[in-house]
């Protein structure tokens, strides 16, 4: 294990944010000259020059506010004592930060603050981590002259939030929390109520935090300079004593965090202000929902059993590995080598994923390896490779700050990718226009200070029709960027596409009925995007999880190329990946037809490179995808599987078919943190490691490779990659690595886009966006800048083909599924945290008219039935969805939403069509099974 990087010193808070000006000015701070970008505050300039001006309401993650009056300075030639946080530097300005007059003023200010603050520093939970305490020391306050009078010392504490408390008696009303909620998070849940002495922080008009609009991102807690808003963990355990930088293991944003500990006990997770993906922000999951890592349900010793109806037997690692290897060898001997396969996990590190696919290909000698991206972003892989040349989002997250028009298609960033959602909202508040294409009225459509220019509320399953109609308008109105197309794209393919897209069958008028979107709305949205200047597309699983998922990805790529919105800041086509390492798992060669770096197994040159390094002949034909493996299992041809960190019995569609397939196998090996729905069918359970125990890398949705550093030792005693290597060796093929770093070195040696990547370089640069090679030694934030990866951009015609899954008299409603902010995928992690206070069960959202027709009231138990199966859950009457459409989540095994989803899938990749299932609803008096 590599030694964790310990952060020796606190990151300096420079008081105000950096300015982006390219011109510089020179100021003199206490006689020292310093050059800073024009517009820089005196406070920041002083800090850069090594002088920390006392402050309370200022912090460099928030715009200057100028309320605390502690940062006063003297400026030569000016009257008074301006606040250094709100006063910009001017060329030649001479500033004094320490004078007798300033000392007296600051001491007076501090005296007023302290006169209404509990004097309990020694027993305060923030003792040693309190800016108010620090500032009292800095200004030399020794006594308070004011006699006891009216104060807030008896103000109550709000403990409603499970993760942090709000002790109003310690509040200095600096507004940092309010500004963090507004500027950083963009929720505007907090305000300062009343005026003067009565002023107080108020969540959603004086609600308790838990009952307010607060999304529990924790930005307010991080911004608070006192113990007013503080993590309950810190209150209970004390302030941390050591820190380790690592990466969040939830969504595809991949936020960088500083894990703060006391010994080996994690106290809190603080988002890293230098994190390339998150710039110091986080969401409720990343910051707070990590308690699952030490949950009592964790399995930390290997388990085996002869049959799935017998009891688990706890064994040591050697016995578990031998048991698994014997089972696999027996299957190979009896049924052949293609009777085995494996599934890699997007929640595991690149290194862990890489060794699993290597074990399958080199040790099991089959290409039957697939990844859970099969059920989310496999159409992204197909579509972007066909059009641009590789499976990758085109931009870095920061690019959205330059977008003039943002088109969000089939994604709900504020819930599923919340930190990027906040970044996007900031740009929208600055004036960028927003087009939302979604059957649901997601949060972005209308929220504080944000209103979508267009919400194309289409019928589920008609994405391609709508994007074709947008392209039709752009092509027929003469809004094509002809110069870009001629210079950068394959012109023959463009001409064929133009002939196709201008057909009248693709007009908004022709497609209005099928899509449910009025033609004028399409025409308006097309004009907005085409004339944007910088038009950026962001999309999620509402694009990919359809029978035409791959077609839709290509349709969006066409749209971007036709309008010249590729290859620079502020534009692009960007998949918002669901899990933390979807991008990485795909990059690492997890698909059955590709080696790492998206190179087909039939490519002799590539295969020979792998053969030479791995020392074994490799198969040149693609292996089975997950649904093919499951089908083959039901047919009796596929008999054993290694499942890394994936609960396919809950997450994959048509649960009954998945169960039948797993039940038919002779050996199911599950490597995970907890026993889950899939492990009910398993014969071997190999304990996995939480992200806090992993050593390796994750690659986020912007291709950013981030280090995952071990914060605590593995609870099971072994790293996951070591377990995989042990099984491989027991099967007869040794994979010897001394460290995760060595695995990355092998990845780099075999994968051109990772050629320059190493743990050393990651430690040096913080993170790297691939491609990282000789041409781009520090990575590539924006792709296709000079030319597409495939050379010229390829236009592909995208005829709209309706899905087979249609509403009928028996199943008249269309169900679409998704996730919410507080829970994550199958909920294995978040259900084992206090996040359940926000979402304790899956709920079906239904339109008022549909509910009334069926005699369903808000909160009623209902049965949801499709042709695949039925389940029960409670109903919620919602105006966020149109009549004829219902929506739910899949976070809870008790409701088992995927019992009702079908085996329909994307035509090119078999990505399941989770987003369209014809269902019927009826009231149910029974409660859900297991409740």
């Amino acid at each position, binding site marked *: 294990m590599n030694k964790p990087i310990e952060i020796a010193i606190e990151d300096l808070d420079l008081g105000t944010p950096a300015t982006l000006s390219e011109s510089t000015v020179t100021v003199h701070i206490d006689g020292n000259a310093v050059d800073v970008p024009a517009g820089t505050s005196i406070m920041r300039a002083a800090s850069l020059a090594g002088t920390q001006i006392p402050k309370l309401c200022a912090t460099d993650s928030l715009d200057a506010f100028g309320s605390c009056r502690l940062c006063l300075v003297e400026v030569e030639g000016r009257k008074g004592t301006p606040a250094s946080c709100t006063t910009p530097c001017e060329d030649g300005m001479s500033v004094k930060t320490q004078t007798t007059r300033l000392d007296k003023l600051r001491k007076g200010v501090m005296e007023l603050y302290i006169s209404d603050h509990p004097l309990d520093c020694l027993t305060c939970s923030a003792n040693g981590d309190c800016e108010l305490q620090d500032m009292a020391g800095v200004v030399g306050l020794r006594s308070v002259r004011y006699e006891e009078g009216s104060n807030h010392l008896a103000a109550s504490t709000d403990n409603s939030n499970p993760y942090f408390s709000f002790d109003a008696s310690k509040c200095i009303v600096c507004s940092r929390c309010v500004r963090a909620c507004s500027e950083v998070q963009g929720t505007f849940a907090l305000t300062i109520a009343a005026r003067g002495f009565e002023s107080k922080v108020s969540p959603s008009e004086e609600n308790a935090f838990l009952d307010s609009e607060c999304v529990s991102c924790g930005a307010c807690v991080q911004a608070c300079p006192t113990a007013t808003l503080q993590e309950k963990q810190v209150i209970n355990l004390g302030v941390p004593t050591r820190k380790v930088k690592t990466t969040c293991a939830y969504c595809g944003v991949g936020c960088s965090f500083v894990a703060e500990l006391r010994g080996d006990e994690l106290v809190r997770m603080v988002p890293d202000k230098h994190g390339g993906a998150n710039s110091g922000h986080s969401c409720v999951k990343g910051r707070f929902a990590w308690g699952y890592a030490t949950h009592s349900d964790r399995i930390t010793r290997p388990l085996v059993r002869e049959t799935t109806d017998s009891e688990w037997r706890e064994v040591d690692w050697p016995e578990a590995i031998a048991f698994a290897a014997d089972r696999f060898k027996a299957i190979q001997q009896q049924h052949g080598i*293609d009777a085995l396969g494996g599934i890699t996990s997007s929640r595991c590190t690149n290194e862990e994923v890489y060794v699993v696919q290597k074990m399958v290909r080199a040790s099991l000698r089959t*290409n039957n390896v697939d990844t859970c991206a099969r059920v989310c972003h496999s159409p992204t892989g197909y579509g972007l490779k066909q059009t641009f040349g590789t499976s990758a989002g085109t931009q870095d997250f920061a690019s959205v700050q330059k977008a003039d028009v943002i088109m969000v298609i089939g994604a709900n960033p504020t819930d599923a990718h919340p930190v990027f959602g906040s970044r996007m909202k900031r740009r929208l508040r600055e004036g960028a226009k927003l087009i939302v294409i979604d059957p649901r009225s997601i949060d972005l459509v209308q929220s504080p200070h944000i209103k979508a220019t267009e919400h194309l509320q289409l019928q589920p399953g008609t994405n391609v029709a709508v994007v074709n109609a947008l392209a039709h308008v752009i092509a027929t109105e003469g809004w094509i960027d002809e110069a870009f197309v001629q210079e950068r794209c394959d012109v023959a393919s463009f001409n*064929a596409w133009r002939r196709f897209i201008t057909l009248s069958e693709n007009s908004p008028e022709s497609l209005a009925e099928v899509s449910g979107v009025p033609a004028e709305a399409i025409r308006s949205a097309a004009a907005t995007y085409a004339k944007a200047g910088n038009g950026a597309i962001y999309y999620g699983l509402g694009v990919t999880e359809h*029978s*035409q998922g791959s*077609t839709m990805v*290509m349709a969006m790529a066409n749209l971007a190329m036709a309008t010249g919105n590729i290859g620079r800041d502020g534009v692009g086509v960007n998949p918002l990946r669901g899990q933390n390492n979807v991008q990485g798992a795909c990059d690492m060669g997890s698909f*059955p*037809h590709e080696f790492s770096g998206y190179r*087909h197994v*039939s490519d002799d040159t590539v295969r020979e490179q792998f053969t030479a390094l791995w020392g074994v002949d490799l198969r040149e*034909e*693609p*292996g*089975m*995808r997950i*649904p*093919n493996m499951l*089908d*083959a299992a*039901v*047919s009796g*041809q596929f008999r054993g599987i290694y499942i890394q960190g994936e609960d396919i019995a809950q997450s994959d569609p048509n649960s009954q*078919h998945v169960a039948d397939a797993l039940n038919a196998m002779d050996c199911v090996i599950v490597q995970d943190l907890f026993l889950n729905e899939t492990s009910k069918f398993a014969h071997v359970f190999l304990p996995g490691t939480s992200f806090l125990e992993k050593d390796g890398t994750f690659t986020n949705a912007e291709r950013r490779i981030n280090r995952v550093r071990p914060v605590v030792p593995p609870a099971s005693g072994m790293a996951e990659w070591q377990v995989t290597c042990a099984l491989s060796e027991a099967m007869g093929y040794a994979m010897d690595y001394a460290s995760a770093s060595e695995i990355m070195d092998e990845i780099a040696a075999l994968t051109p886009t990772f050629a320059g990547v190493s743990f050393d370089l990651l430690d040096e640069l913080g993170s790297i966006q691939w491609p990282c090679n000789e041409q781009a030694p520090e990575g590539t934030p924006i792709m296709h800048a000079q030319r597409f990866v495939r050379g010229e951009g390829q236009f*592909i*015609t*995208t*005829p709209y*083909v309706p899905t087979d899954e249609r509403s009928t008299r028996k199943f008249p409603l269309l169900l679409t599924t998704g996730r919410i902010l507080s829970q994550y995928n199958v909920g294995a992690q978040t259900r084992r945290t206090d996040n359940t206070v926000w979402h304790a069960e899956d709920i079906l959202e239904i339109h008022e008219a549909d509910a009334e027709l069926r005699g369903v009231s808000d909160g009623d138990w209902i049965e949801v039935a499709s042709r695949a199966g039925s389940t029960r859950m409670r109903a919620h009457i919602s105006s966020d969805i149109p009549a004829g459409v219902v929506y739910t989540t899949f976070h809870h095994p008790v409701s088992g939403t995927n019992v009702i989803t079908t*085996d329909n*899938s994307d*035509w*090119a*990749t*078999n990505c399941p069509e989770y987003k369209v299932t014809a269902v019927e609803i009826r009231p149910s008096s029974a409660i859900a099974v297991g409740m």
Partner: protein
Amino acid sequence: MTLDYSQQHLIKMANQIAGNMPSRENVPAQIVQHMAQFWTPPMRADLKKIAENAPDSFSDDVLAALALQD
């Protein structure tokens, strides 16, 4: 011929590929190429066997594609 679940699934996948090929020119050849890239040899062989016994289950483009395979 009675078709089991996986056989029905193969038929559906093949017909879906045929119906969704972006270019409508020479669809059978595109199907062959797609299956060579993404289907295992046993899946392709199974499909051919099914088609011999249940040709009515397939679109003309799929049948033409199967005829193109060796």
